[in-house]
């Protein structure tokens, strides 16, 4: 799914989050806890894919410039950050 978070890490985080929700009085479960955990796993995987896509887009944008920019140069780094953040900002506000 991602080279940023391992399968073990995603499973571990999902269990931690499930445990946290179980102990929270403001949360009521409407399904089996493991089903709930699987939704959490899927959401994390979905997010990681999203960030990988953003990373690829930022790199493609740099590569599509007329001028060749060497990877590792300061200019490359500045552009990468700029494009990555631009793509991130397209995610929109979290108000749904």
């Amino acid at each position, binding site marked *: 799914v991602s080279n*940023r*978070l391992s399968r073990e890490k995603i499973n571990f985080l999902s269990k931690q989050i499930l445990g946290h929700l179980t102990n929270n009085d403001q949360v009521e479960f409407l*399904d089996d806890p493991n089903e709930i955990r699987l939704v959490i796993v*899927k*959401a994390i995987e979905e997010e990681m894919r999203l960030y990988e896509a953003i990373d690829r887009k930022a790199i493609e944008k740099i590569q599509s410039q007329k001028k060749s920019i060497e990877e*590792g140069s300061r200019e490359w780094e500045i552009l990468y950050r700029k494009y990555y953040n631009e793509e991130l900002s397209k995610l929109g506000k979290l108000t749904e």
Partner: protein
Amino acid sequence: LPLVICKRSEGESIRKPSAAARAWFLSASREESRARTGSGFFTLGKIRVFLKDSPELLRAFLQPVLEFWPNLLYFREVMRLNKNQVEHMAFIIVRNLTKEGKVILEDRGRIVESIGGLITEDFQKEDHLDQEVREILSKHMEKIRKENIEYQTMFRMIKTKLAKERNIVL
């Protein structure tokens, strides 16, 4: 190229190198570049050229710079998710749980926040571990260079061992 290799082969989440390591790398490279070309701006290609035509003494100085370069890229490239990304992830988890009718929540905002805090806390544990491994390795850089040991392999081995001892899931 080193960027791609490091990123694909390592898959670890690491933040930037320590400020001291970064400062050393930048100043050593600038100094060398300024001495040779009159310009403090340097690139990986430039260091490779320097390395080829340098006298023995300078080569000994440049080699570690060159070796450190992929690490610098590596550290930068696989930086862990930032605060906004963690918040976004927590939001999506809660959104999906409610959208799929798995839970009913009283205070959504507070729950999103607490999940974000939980994820951040876990990432910080790993960050601290990374820092510790870097510090351990920095004390043995001379040996690593002399015996031609691959830094990233060593890093991974020590990190895995310490993580196991401390029950940190990587």
